[in-house]
C-alpha cells in the first residue's frame, strides 16, 4: 500500500511547544513516526562553564516556563549537597509549598490543553480560569507568575507570613471546589471518554522498559514517585503515588486529576507543620565533587548531575528532563494509531519541549 508522509509540527495549533514528527501513513493509520527535535535547543548545559554557580539559578529556572520552580529547586539542592550547606527547615517547607503550587498550575495547564486537543474549548477555558487563581497566589507570594525567582543556594529569597499562609489556605478551598467541578467533567463526560479511553495503551512492561517517568509511568501501574525519596519537606509528609492500571490516555488524565487533589492536600499538610525560623543560610565557598539529584517535576523525574572542581563555575551540569525519558513512549504509541488520535497521543505524556532540549 502506498504511504503518505504528513509533517506534524513544529507549528501546530495543538502543540504548546515546537516539535516535528514525520508521520508515515497508510490510509488513516500511522505506521511510523519519526521525531525531529532541536527547535528550541539553547545549549544551557554549556552556559554553566561561563556563569557563576550562584547566578546559574536564574538560568536553571528559565529552562522551562511551566516546571520552572522545581528546576531551580533541584539545582539549588545539588549545589547545597556539593557544598554540604545546611538549609533551614522553614526554607524546605516553603520550597515544598511552592513546588506543589507549581504542580497544580502545570496540571491545570495540561488539562486545558488536553481539552483543547479534543476540541472541548469551553472546558479548556474553565481549566485555565482556575489556573489563574493559582497563579495569583504564586504572584502574591513570589512576585512572578511563572518564573518564581524564589529559590537561591542556601534557602529561599522570600518568606510567607502567617496571614498570607492563612489566605492561601482559604483560596485553596475555592480552588478545590472549582477543580472538583472540572475534573468531574474530565472523568465523566461521554465525549471526552470517547476520545481518551482505549487510546494509546502502554502496558506495564513497555512503560518500564522504555524508561517512562511520572504520570505516564504511574498510569500503567508502576508506583514510582521521586517525592518518596524525601527531599525538601517530603520526609515529613506522606506521599502515596497515584496509580491506575489501564495505561491508556484516560488513565493518564485521571492520574493527573487525582494528583491535583494530592497537591492541595500536601500544601495543607506542609502549612500546618510549617516551622518558624530563618529562610536562608549563607553559603560560602565553592562547590567541589560530584552529585546526582533526582526530584519529581509535574511531568516526571528530573535528574541533575553536577560535577564541580572548586572554582566558581561548575565543570559539568547534566539535566535529564522527564519529557526526554517519555519521548520513546510517544514514538511507540504512535505506531498503529489513527491520524485523528495523534494530537491526543502527543499531548498525553505532557510534552515540555523546551525542557527536553534545554
Amino acid at each position, binding site marked *: 500500500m502506498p504511504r503518505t508522509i504528513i509533517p506534524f509540527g513544529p507549528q501546530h495549533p495543538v502543540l504548546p511547544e515546537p516539535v516535528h514528527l514525520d508521520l508515515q501513513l497508510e490510509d488513516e493509520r500511522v505506521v511510523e513516526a519519526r521525531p525531529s527535535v532541536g527547535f528550541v535547543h539553547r545549549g544551557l548545559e554549556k552556559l554553566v562553564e561561563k556563569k557563576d554557580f550562584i547566578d546559574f539559578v536564574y538560568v536553571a529556572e528559565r529552562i522551562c516556563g511551566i516546571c520552572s520552580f522545581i528546576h531551580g529547586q533541584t539545582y539549588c539542592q545539588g549545589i547545597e549537597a556539593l557544598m554540604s550547606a545546611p538549609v533551614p527547615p522553614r526554607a524546605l517547607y516553603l520550597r515544598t509549598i511552592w513546588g506543589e503550587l507549581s504542580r497544580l498550575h502545570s496540571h491545570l495547564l495540561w488539562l486545558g490543553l488536553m481539552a483543547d486537543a479534543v476540541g472541548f474549548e469551553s472546558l479548556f477555558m474553565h481549566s485555565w480560569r482556575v489556573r489563574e487563581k493559582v497563579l495569583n497566589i504564586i504572584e502574591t507570594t513570589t512576585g512572578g507568575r511563572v518564573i518564581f525567582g524564589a529559590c537561591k543556594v542556601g534557602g529561599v529569597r522570600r518568606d510567607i507570613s502567617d496571614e498570607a499562609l492563612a489566605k492561601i489556605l482559604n483560596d485553596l478551598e475555592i480552588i478545590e471546589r472549582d477543580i472538583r467541578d472540572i475534573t468531574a467533567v474530565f472523568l465523566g463526560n461521554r465525549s471526552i471518554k470517547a476520545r481518551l479511553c482505549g487510546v494509546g495503551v502502554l502496558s506495564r512492561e513497555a512503560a518500564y522498559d522504555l524508561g517512562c517517568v511520572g504520570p505516564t509511568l504511574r498510569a500503567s501501574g508502576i508506583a514510582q514517585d521521586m517525592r518518596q*525519596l524525601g527531599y525538601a519537606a517530603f520526609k515529613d509528609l506522606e506521599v502515596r503515588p497515584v496509580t491506575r492500571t489501564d495505561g491508556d490516555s484516560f488513565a493518564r488524565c485521571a492520574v493527573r486529576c487525582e494528583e491535583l487533589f494530592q497537591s492541595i492536600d500536601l500544601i495543607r499538610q506542609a502549612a500546618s507543620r510549617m516551622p518558624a525560623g530563618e529562610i536562608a543560610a549563607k553559603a560560602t565557598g565553592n562547590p567541589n565533587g560530584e552529585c546526582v539529584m533526582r526530584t519529581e517535576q509535574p511531568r516526571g523525574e528530573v535528574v541533575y548531575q553536577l560535577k564541580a572542581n572548586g572554582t566558581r563555575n561548575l565543570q559539568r551540569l547534566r539535566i*535529564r528532563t522527564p519529557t526526554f525519558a517519555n519521548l520513546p513512549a510517544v514514538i511507540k504509541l504512535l505506531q498503529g494509531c489513527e491520524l485523528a488520535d495523534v494530537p491526543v497521543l502527543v499531548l498525553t505524556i505532557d510534552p515540555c519541549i523546551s525542557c527536553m532540549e534545554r
Partner: protein
Amino acid sequence: MPRRNPDFPMSPEHTFETIPVEMLLERVRGFHQQGWRLVQICATRLPEQLELTYSFDRDNRLGNLRLVIPANALQVSSISSIFSCAFLYENELHDLFNLHVSGLTVDFEGHFYKTAIKFPFGTTKPPAGRPGAPAASVAPQGISAKT
C-alpha cells in the same frame, strides 16, 4: 566518589563503578537482566578525555557505570539493542560531543539537533559572547536620551 549530604537522609545509595570500555555491553546486559532500567547517559568533556556515565534505576536506587574514552578515539558501542530508549541519548551525544556510536538502532546521522556550529559541546572552552558582568568602563550603546 560523590559526597552524600547528611541533610538528605533518605537518599538512596548512588553507586558509581568505573569499567573499561570493552566491558560496557556485558555490564549493561547484566543490569537489564536484573531488572534495572536506563535513566540517562551523560558525557563530560575533560582535557584529553571524554567521561561517559550510564545511570540505571531500580526501586528508586541509582546505579552508575563510568567509562573514560581518550579524546583521539571517540568511539563507543551503542546499547540501544539492549535498552531501546538509549537511541535518543546516544544521538544527542553524537551531535553535541562528536562521539561516534556504532550500532545505533535509530541513527539520525547528525541531524538530531540543529545547531549553528557542529559538535558545540566538544570543546572545553567556555562559550563566547556577552560576558556575565561588563566592566565599568564600557560605554553604553544605544541612542541618547529621547524626550
